[in-house]
């Protein structure tokens, strides 16, 4: 079966305590915690895998231990000189290890596989599990004034309604940014304006105009959804909560979440529902990619192009309205299928809108490419080196821009993607331009995929009455190639058909850790553009303080000033 070959390879070198299979292409191996770094490293670099997610879990009520799950997507390194793993052998191998509650430590994997850094920091925040040897032990998610001994995801830690007292701002501990040595200027970008969806606090350490290093922290609006769902929600509610994780790729989250449950329960949904799920997620991709290409123009002051692109985006919203009844593709996915079918007339109208979108996208792309000044602003900026990309497992256009072909629609096809043919997009050079080019290619393939879905979509039922009866303790993973890369949900079933542990890993989570390397060596004026090219929210540039370390003076730049600097540069 799929993956057995790799398990054999691992077995030759390490002691595997137990192997289980959750789904056709999802396997778990249990190893001793002292073997953990070596095993993960072996799979990651020697067999050729990327880190998909890492999950901490409080399993004291199940097996008296805490558990860690490192989910690796075995798909080959995809670097030019490395061996290729054929599609029918690709799989997910999860390395599981148990940690006794008396000790609460495990050897860190980050020194061997840098991609683990955020996950291991998060596991400390949430469970208090200490990664021995982790180079960066700062908090990741919880706020600075969160009590030191309160680990929210431990089952006995707190009720989901509990909120610790807020510390008086004066007593709030100061967060330390990783500041490199030297006579550098420290530029804080952010923290944020709460109005925007994704606030973040960036520190740029500059020598003159050049960024030498950067550090940042996010999670200012961590909502504790994982805690909220645990032991309380049923799957009728969870899908609807999952789609509220993001305002842009909500549909990806809802399918990932529901499909995780469907996989654990072995539920096969009707073909028509599979096809429509793909249609909706591709519509979501259309509007998200247009949003990002538009913002990349706006960040460089090209308002005319931005406006045109947003006009096209409006058609994609109308498309969503036709398909789901709402301008956002929300409230459609349920376990066992979908809730809303399309009529022949609606499909006809959708095809017309699609043709219109295609024509206008091509026109605007031509016009932008014609504008040499615009293209020059994107080229050679914010380069994500291929080796850094290999080490940090970024996802989506960010990764494909660096010439590494990672796309779950190809690597681990789900739903209707198994039936659809399309050429995945890939860029080269890893700069802002490459990422935007990949997005443009993705736009075109999205339109192509939606058309194919309408063509191949069989008639019939849209949902089956799913009898969700999943054994307690069983887990599975749902994954979706969202507009920004793969979104992965991991769900472990608890008693009485409720969720025991839900781990949602959004795509941008995997893209942040490598941003630091993308910023290095660029000028301050490009910082906003580089952050934008990752496709997070733009809110971080709301307010900037420039501090000159030498004479301790600081000057506040508003969003306007910063954009002005950004635009002045030619």
């Amino acid at each position, binding site marked *: 079966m799929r993956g057995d070959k790799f398990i054999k390879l691992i077995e030759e070198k390490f002691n595997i305590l137990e192997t289980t299979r959750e789904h056709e292409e999802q396997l778990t191996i249990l190893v001793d915690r002292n073997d953990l770094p070596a095993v993960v490293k072996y799979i990651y670099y020697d067999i050729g895998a990327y880190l998909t997610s890492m999950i901490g879990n409080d399993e004291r009520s199940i097996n008296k231990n805490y558990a860690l799950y490192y989910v690796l997507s075995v798909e080959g390194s995809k670097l030019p000189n490395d061996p290729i793993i054929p599609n029918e052998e690709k799989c997910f191998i999860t390395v599981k290890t148990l940690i006794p509650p008396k000790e609460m430590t495990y050897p860190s994997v980050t020194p061997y596989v840098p991609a683990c850094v955020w996950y291991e920091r998060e596991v400390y925040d949430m469970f208090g599990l200490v990664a021995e040897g982790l180079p960066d032990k700062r908090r990741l998610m919880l706020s600075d004034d969160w009590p030191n001994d309160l680990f929210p995801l431990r089952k006995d830690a707190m009720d989901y309604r509990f909120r610790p007292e807020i510390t008086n701002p004066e007593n709030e501990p100061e967060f330390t940014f990783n500041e490199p040595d030297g006579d550098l200027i420290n530029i804080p970008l952010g923290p944020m304006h709460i109005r925007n969806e994704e606030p973040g606090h960036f520190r740029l350490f500059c020598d003159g105009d050049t960024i030498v290093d950067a550090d940042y922290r996010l999670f200012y609006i961590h909502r504790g959804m994982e805690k909220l769902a645990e032991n309380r929600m049923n799957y009728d509610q969870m899908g609807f909560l999952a789609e*509220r994780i993001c305002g842009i790729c909500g549909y990806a989250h809802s399918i990932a979440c529901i499909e995780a449950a469907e996989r654990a329960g072995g539920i096969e949904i009707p073909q028509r529902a599979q096809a429509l799920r793909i249609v909706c997620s591709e519509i979501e991709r259309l509007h998200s990619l247009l949003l990002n290409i538009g913002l990349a123009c706006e960040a460089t002051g090209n308002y*005319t192009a931005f406006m045109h692109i947003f006009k096209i985006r409006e058609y994609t919203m109308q498309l969503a*309205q*036709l398909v789901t*009844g*709402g301008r956002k593709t*929300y*409230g459609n996915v349920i376990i066992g299928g979908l809730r809303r079918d399309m009529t022949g007339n609606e499909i006809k109208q959708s095809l017309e809108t699609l043709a219109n979108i295609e024509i206008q996208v091509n026109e605007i792309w031509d016009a932008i490419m014609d*504008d040499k000044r615009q293209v020059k602003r994107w080229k050679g900026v914010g380069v994500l080196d291929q080796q850094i990309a290999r080490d940090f497992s970024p996802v989506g256009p960010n990764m494909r821009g660096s010439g590494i072909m990672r796309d779950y629609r190809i690597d681990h096809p789900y739903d209707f993607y198994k039936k659809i043919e399309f050429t995945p997009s890939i860029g080269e050079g890893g700069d802002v331009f490459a990422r935007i080019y990949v997005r443009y290619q993705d736009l075109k393939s999205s339109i192509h995929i939606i058309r194919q879905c309408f063509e191949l979509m069989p008639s019939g039922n849209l949902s089956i009455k799913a009898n969700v009866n999943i054994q307690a303790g069983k887990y599975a993973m749902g994954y979706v190639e969202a507009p920004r890369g793969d979104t992965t949900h991991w769900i472990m079933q608890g008693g009485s058909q409720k969720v025991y542990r839900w781990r949602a890993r959004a795509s941008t989570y995997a893209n942040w850790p490598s941003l630091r390397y993308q910023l290095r060596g660029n000028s301050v004026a490009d910082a906003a553009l580089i952050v934008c090219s990752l496709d997070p929210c733009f809110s971080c540039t709301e307010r900037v303080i420039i501090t000159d370390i030498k004479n301790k003076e600081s000057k506040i730049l508003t969003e306007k000033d910063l954009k002005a600097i950004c635009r002045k540069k030619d």
Partner: protein
Amino acid sequence: MMKLIDITDKYGLETCKYPLEPYLVPETYRGQPKYKFDLCIGCAACSVACPPNAISVKAVDTKVVWEFDCGRCIFCARCDEVCPTGAIRLSTEYELAAKFDKSALIQRGEMDMASCAECGKLYSTKRLISYTLRKLELSNLSEERIKNAKFYVNLCPECKSKKAILSLETEAKEIL
């Protein structure tokens, strides 16, 4: 740059004059749920189905109070799907902003409760009972069964189970 201006020229004005003129949404748009009090029977199916608990159906004194808070609604149309009488339907209404006065987001209905024919306790809405009776008329059950069912409809759950046990006992005795 010139090409961009050509595109502008080609497509002309694209914006619509909203709010000066209405913005048209498709018929199948999922907007604010609209409640028709006259049709509601207080069965609470909607409140069970609603994922974010936007609808509540509670007994307050002698009334059953149906309440919908649009501020919590996620426009999923679950309520619309399950309502047996069509009392709650999603409309194409999308202008939902409420200025200061959040009560504008609340829709509410109060229904009279019926009392148990046996013990006199209030147990359900009068409308639900007459709805059940109407449905019974339309069903093609035997007359005997209908008569039986009608008798039980007017009892509160406790009396219903007591009566049912009693009648089972007598039946068993008769057979013996």
